[in-house]
């Protein structure tokens, strides 16, 4: 079966509920903005209604440092979603953010063969269109 690139669907888009908007709005402004418990201050990602430490439902959103270290990764060869057929093979990494939670995003400008656990990385931003910006990851010193 041959498929022309123009016929391939786009990757799936996030459909965030209202409560998650500050995260996605932050990405659009090229800032990493995460949810934090407004009572006890515990940072959490992914967003959720309740703090599992103090059970408060009061939340605030705060910008965190867009850097961290490599926790794990994979290189995808099989396009499970047709929207990624043009991109295979691509590397996706799990990052320990400096402030404690993790983020998963595609690696840019580096080969997976060069990766080692604990390597320093920065989070960068890719504007998909006017409404959507997605995070990506770059090795420190290769940006």
């Amino acid at each position, binding site marked *: 079966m041959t498929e022309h690139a123009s016929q391939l669907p786009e*990757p*799936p*888009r*996030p*459909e*965030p509920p209202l409560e*998650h908007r500050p995260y996605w709005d932050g990405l659009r402004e090229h800032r990493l903005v995460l949810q934090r418990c407004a009572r006890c201050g515990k940072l959490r*990602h*992914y967003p959720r209604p309740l703090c599992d430490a103090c059970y408060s439902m009061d939340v605030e959103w705060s910008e965190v440092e867009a850097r961290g270290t490599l*926790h*794990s*990764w*994979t*290189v*995808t*060869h*099989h396009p*499970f*979603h047709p929207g*990624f057929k043009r*991109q295979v*093979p*691509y590397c*996706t990494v*799990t990052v320990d953010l400096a402030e404690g*939670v*993790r*983020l*998963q*995003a*595609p690696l840019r400008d580096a080969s*997976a063969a060069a990766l080692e*656990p604990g390597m320093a990385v920065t989070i960068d931003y890719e504007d998909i269109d006017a409404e959507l910006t*997605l*995070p990506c990851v770059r090795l420190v010193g290769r940006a």
Partner: protein
Amino acid sequence: MAGAFSLADKAVVSGVGETVFARETNRSQLALTLEASLAAIADAGLDPKDIDGVIPYGAGGIVAEDFITNFGLPDLRYSATTPMGGASPVAALQSAAMAVATGVARHVLVALGRGSIAGGRITKRLAEMPQMRIVGEFEMPLGTNAPAQFYAHMARRHMLLYGTTREQMAEVAMTCRRHAQMNERAMMRKPMTREDYFAARMIAEPFGLFDCSLESAGGCAVVVSSAACARDLRQAPVWIGGVAEGHPDSPSAITQRPDMTRFGIAKAAPKAFAMAGVSHADIDVAEIYDCFTWVVINQLEDLGFCAKGEGGAFVEGGRIGLGGELPINTHGGLLSEAHIAGMNHIVELVRQLRGQCGERQVADAEVGLVTGFGDLGDGALAIMHR
């Protein structure tokens, strides 16, 4: 746990059954579920109208009402679902055992059918599940869309922490394939060499094609009956000695899990072993959920057959093959028999403990273990004996 009600030997698996396994079928999920159910009920020596409890597969489109309608059940007294992906069938054994131990029901049917994959490929099925909402928002748009990719991050982490290798993962794939060659129902019976394993295309590193389970159409079912009626049934009863389910931390997002290499089954295993009153050395045969080769290695650790990080070495040297210290997946598993979400693992363990497995029979199998794994890390195990 002191004083907790124990399910030990309160329930038996009285019947097991399945359909033909294939890659494609023109039959519906419901038809496959019912055909497997009829086979299991007949195996138990029961009539469909004897069924008074039903646990359909949580992730499927089949509901208890389908069984009332098709069997003409006069009085269904218990129904439940255990929506834990591939851990659902084994978790359902716990729920069924609870139902018959308390007298709520006498014969609980646990049934699962999977229709053709055409039009229902894994990424589509996954994206529609409520427990996938979070990864659907935060990971799928970035290119992580299927279990092979979600679990690849865990497997890589295990390799980084403990030095686990693809050579060791190949042992799992080749062992399952060898066992499948002795199973006429198995979808994949062609011999697999180490060269075949390494020559296969990569899917999501470190997983190559032969690290990944099959996609299958078919059905499996088991009947769980109360201990009180065990002796009246057609087959020798297989007793549920210990059973438990467990959920990992951060169950809906592996990315945020403090220790990516600790599955929910790590929490369940000590409870099931204590309930059954057996040790790891007592286990004669184990059917370990094998959606991916590495998932077997990690479960062997979380089950306590070896220490964390030693699962790779554990599967080397023929230990997990027939004739080895701990034969696993004697039917070929999800990797080589069929992917019936692990209900086929329960069916196989029951037949092993009845001594019905012919060429692939583990000699004198008295005590066995079956696990389920799914939904990004949920787990369940049952320890059974004859």
